[in-house]
Each structure stands twice: as C-alpha cells, then as structure tokens.
C-alpha cells in the first residue's frame, strides 16, 4: 500500500530524512518510535506534502501512485491522512462546514454525489457518537480554543469522516490524559479494517497497550535502524534508545 524507498528530505539546507525505507501493507498497524529530533514528524509532514520540506532523493509509492508528485489535497483525496502533532486553529471556520467540505471534496473525487447539509449531519452525528465526542465540537470553529486533548480528538473525528486508506498519527497520544488516550485509541481501533493501515508515531510504549502494532520501527537520525514485532517496544521501554543506536552504529 505504501512503499518508501531511500527517502531524503531537507528543510532550509538541513537534511532531516537520510535514506528512509518503509513498507506498509493493508491491514497493518506500524509504530515508529525514536528519540526527539530523529525525523519522525518530518516523515509525516513530507508524506502529507508540507511545502516547507524539500525531497532530494528517493521515492514514495502509495497504491501504485507517485505520492510525491501530488499536491497535499490530492494526497488526501487519494486516501492519505495525517493527524497533526499540533492541529492548527482556524478561527472563523466552522468545524461541521469544514468537515462537510472535505468530505464532499472526496465524494466528488470518487465520482459520487455530494451530501447535503442534513445528510452530512446524520453521518457526522454517527461518527461523533462512535468516538464518544462532545456534539458541541461540530458547531465550534476548527480547533479554535480547543484544549490539547480536544484538538487530538478532533483529528480522529476528521479521520473517521474522511475514512482514509492510510493514516499517519503524529504523536496523537502526547498531551493526552489517560481517559483521553483511551478514547482516542478506541476510536482508532474502531476505524481499523483489513483494507486500511495506520502508522503511529509515538514516544511512549503506553499507546501501544491500547493500539497493538504489527510492526515496531526504531527511527534515529533520519532512518529506520531496527524493525520488529510489538515486543521491540517493551524492550525499548526498558533499555532506552541508547543501546539500539550503539548497536546500529556497530553494524554499519
């Protein structure tokens, strides 16, 4: 579904991704863990099409298409979704209208008829209930004045409405209290199917108690240096990144 080969990316001449490889298949949950500054968030933003980053080498194939050739909105329409680490506040734009606009853009892209306000409201209410979100969310402006936890939940709500093929969640667990973490994780689990995939970027093994990954990657200095099953996360929690980094350097 997603094949990243030798991906190099930089921001203002500063290389962050230094030859990253990753393969994600339908139905899989991947977790990417790594110390601060290892390039995890950069990976998410580059995949989403953030224009502040320049890809200098490598390729990303998403469902057979060259992802890097697409505009950010085209990536979304093709089924790519990133949950932002810091969701942007947009005062003056109503959450429900924004979601309907995004949803209809996708329907249009798929050649399906757009939903009118009432039909969309029904769909939105269903998603809101499924994720145990406060219905008042819909009528507020996008993330404006939301608490950290509310913003993260709003990201998951967007994911639920847009129903992407692949979602990359950039530290969606950070800044959440235990209850919020549980709600967000349950939401992600409910959206999980055999034909879609999730990449979790996280610092903490804690999230992985709620969302069980098929593959865990350790990322440092712009590359994935080790991959394994979920036990790798427990190992990491006990020993820290240091050992893995030393080990990886030794094998090079």
């Amino acid at each position: 579904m997603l094949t990243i080969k030798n991906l190099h990316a930089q921001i203002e001449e500063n290389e962050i991704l230094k030859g990253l490889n990753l393969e994600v298949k339908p139905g899989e949950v991947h977790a990417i863990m790594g110390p601060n500054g290892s390039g995890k968030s950069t990976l998410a933003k580059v995949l989403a099409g953030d224009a502040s980053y320049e890809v200098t080498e490598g390729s990303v194939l998403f469902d057979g298409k060259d992802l890097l050739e697409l505009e950010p909105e085209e990536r979304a329409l093709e089924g790519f979704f990133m949950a932002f680490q810091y969701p942007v506040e947009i005062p003056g734009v109503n959450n429900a209208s924004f979601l309907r606009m995004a949803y209809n853009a996708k329907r249009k892209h798929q050649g399906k008829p757009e939903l009118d306000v009432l039909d969309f409201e029904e769909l939105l209410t269903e998603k809101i209930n499924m994720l145990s979100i406060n219905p008042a969310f819909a009528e507020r402006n996008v993330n404006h004045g939301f608490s950290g936890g509310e913003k993260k939940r709003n990201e998951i709500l967007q994911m639920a409405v847009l129903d992407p093929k692949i979602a990359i969640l950039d530290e969606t667990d950070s800044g959440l209290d235990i209850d919020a973490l549980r709600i967000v994780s349950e939401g992600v689990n409910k959206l999980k199917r055999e034909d879609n995939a999730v990449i979790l970027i996280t610092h903490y093994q804690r999230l992985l108690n709620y969302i069980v990954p098929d593959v865990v990657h350790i990322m440092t200095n712009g590359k994935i240096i080790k991959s394994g099953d979920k036990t790798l996360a427990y190992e990491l929690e006990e020993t820290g990144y240091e050992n893995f980094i030393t080990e990886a350097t030794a094998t090079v």
Partner: protein
Amino acid sequence: MTLAPYREVKQFEPSANTAPAWLAAFRKNAYESIQKNGFPSRKQEGWKYLNLEPILSNVFAENTKAEELNLNDMLLEDAYQVVVQNGKINTTLSSSDLPQNLVVCSFEDALKNYERELETCINLSQAETLNSFEALNRVHFQDGLFCLIQKETKLEKPLQILIANSSAETDAVFYPRLYVVANEGSKANILFTQVGKSNAKTLCNLATYLFAKENSCLELVSYQDETEKNYSLANNFVFQAAGSAVNWTTYTHSCNVIRNETKVAFTGKSASTNINSLCLLSGENEVYNHVTVEHRVGACTSQQLSKHILNGKARNEFNSMSHIFEGASLSDSQQMSRSMLLSDKARIFSRPQLRVYNEDVKAAHGATIGQVSADELFYLQSRGIAKDEATSLLVYGFAEEVVETIADKTMRAFIEKHVQRDLREVVSTEV
C-alpha cells in the same frame, strides 16, 4: 447641459427656479463654498491617495438616457423597495404597498406635504459641508428621496433603497440625495444597494443624511457593487440624538473608484453607533473610506470594525477619526482596522486616529495587516480541500466577523450570499 470637463462644473451657478427661498439659499451657499474652496487636491490629508484627475478631466453629461435595469439579483426578498434611478425615484420599480407610518417620496412631493420636515433636515445639514463634491451635490441635485419613519414605528420588513445609475451611451454624472428621518422611538432596518450598469463612464455623487431622533434604532447595511466604468463619491452624515442606536455595515466589492466619507455626530447623550465595513477588492479597484465620529456630547459609544481583503493591484484606504469634544465625559470609542493582502501588489493605507479633548473617557484604536496563514492553508489542503477553495474558506473566516455584526437576518443573508459569491472571484483572480 453644457459639455465641459468636470472641473468646469463648479462654475455652474444654481439655476433660478421656483423652489422655496430656503432651498435656493441652501444651494447658493453651497455654490459659494465651492467658489471659495475649489476641488480637493492630493495636498490635503484626506485626499492624498486618490487621483482625481481622471474624474476632473472627463466630460460627464447631466441628463442621460438610462439603460434598462435588471435588478433581480440585487433585490432583497420580503422587503419594501424604492429605486432611485439616475437621481430620481422610479415609481414603476418601487413598491406601492408601503405601510402608512412610513413615508417614502420624492423631494417634489416632500415639498408639498412635508415641507417643514424637509426644511429642518436641510437646515441641519447646512453647517456640515464635508467637501466640495458634497457641496456640488447641493448645487446640482434635481430631485431625491425623502424617507420619514413616524414616531414609535417599528418597521416589520426591511426597506431596500436601490441607488441605480446607468447611462446607455454618454458619460454621465448623477447627484442622488437621500434624507432619512427616524423619528422618536422608531425602529427600522434599511439596505442601501448601490449598483451601476453602464456602457459609458458614470460618476455617482451621492449624499445621504440620516437623522436618528431620540431613542430610535436604525440598522443600516450598504452594498456597493458597480461596474469597472463607475466612479462613486459618497458623502454620508448621521445625526444621532439622545438614546439613539445606529448600526451601519458597508460591504464594498468592485468599482473603478469609490470614496466614502461618513460623519457621525452625537448630539444627545447615551447614543451608540457601530460603523463597520468590509472591502473585498481585486484587479485595479480603488476604495477610499473615511470615517469621522464626533462625540460632541458625553456618554456615547462608538465602535468601528473595518476589514479589507485585497488581491491584484487593489488599493484601499481606511482613514478614521474619532473626535471626543471637551466636556464629552464617559465617551467610549473603539476603532479597529484589519487587512489581509492576497497579493504583493495590493496596497492598504490604514489610519485609525483619535482626537481626545476630555479626560474620563475610553478610547482605543488599532490596525493589523497580514496574509493568509501558510499553516492554516496546509491544514485545510491536507484534508482534501483544493488550494483556491481553502483560501476562500480562510478569507471568509476573516470576513465573517463583519458580516455577523448585521443583526437583521434577511439583510445578513443577502450580504453573506454576495460575499461568498464575490470571494471566489477575488481569490482566484490572477494578478
């Protein structure tokens, strides 16, 4: 009429007519003030950004054949309508079912039935000349609109006053003149719609006088959208008596050149005014907005919120003065100007000012200038919303604050519809 460059028009004396003596004197005084002051020039602070040369050197006829009007798109549903076409009321296009306590008529009729009321209005406006263009209107207006909302009347439906100027062939000038009197305790919602449709260049020299009597409440909305061949010089006066409340929102979209000068004078205590404006401009549109609020007496509140969204090579000026007179204790005055530039070549001149001659008042002013936020744009795009549409959404989010100040639902929906429609055009315009 004589055909000569517009700068010559100041030589034309008011023609001798059968009007009452007070009206003849009013015109003559105006004529003398033009002789004394001449036309404004760029050396004057209030006129420094506007090039008057294309207006002054052009030849405009005073009487011209009007074009057929199609106002369908401009009509407010479920409202009383009055059409002032080329300076005169067009009765065929206006509603005939006005309620009894609302008088809307031509000056000619007002002179017959409401001479005393009209004279009072004209005498009150006598001392308030804003500039020579406004004085020219005094000399040259042929007819106008007189609107009287009777005491304690609460108008059920909004009144829409359409100011439509058109000329089929010749370049032409129009002098619409409007007097609106909201008597004691009355309440009304009025939508002014200024539209122009012409094959030729037109100049609309508009003068509007509003008298909000004690405890009256007026919600006014102006919509200005004219063709690229139009010039519009509008001068507005608002006289507010004690306890009156005026909420005036102006939405300006496209026109060759528009200059609006608005003066609000508080003449009685505990009155309040909100003067809000939204400009949505592209191409080579030029809009110059000047507002003066005079707190002549104390305990009055004035608020101004002005938003400007500019693309292309549009030029926009916001020049506002809040003047708190000596002795006007407990005055409260707020001015805020916010601008969003969508292109490198658009220009905004923003100047909120205060003149405070009394202690014991609240006065604040501010101005911001920015662009569409790249982070917000990326966020929307990452959800599948195309760049132009995402920009429209963000720009509307910026503009909405002004639209929301319109309390009357029908008028708000009208403006909202036009802003939404115009927005797409302005945002997608390539420079």
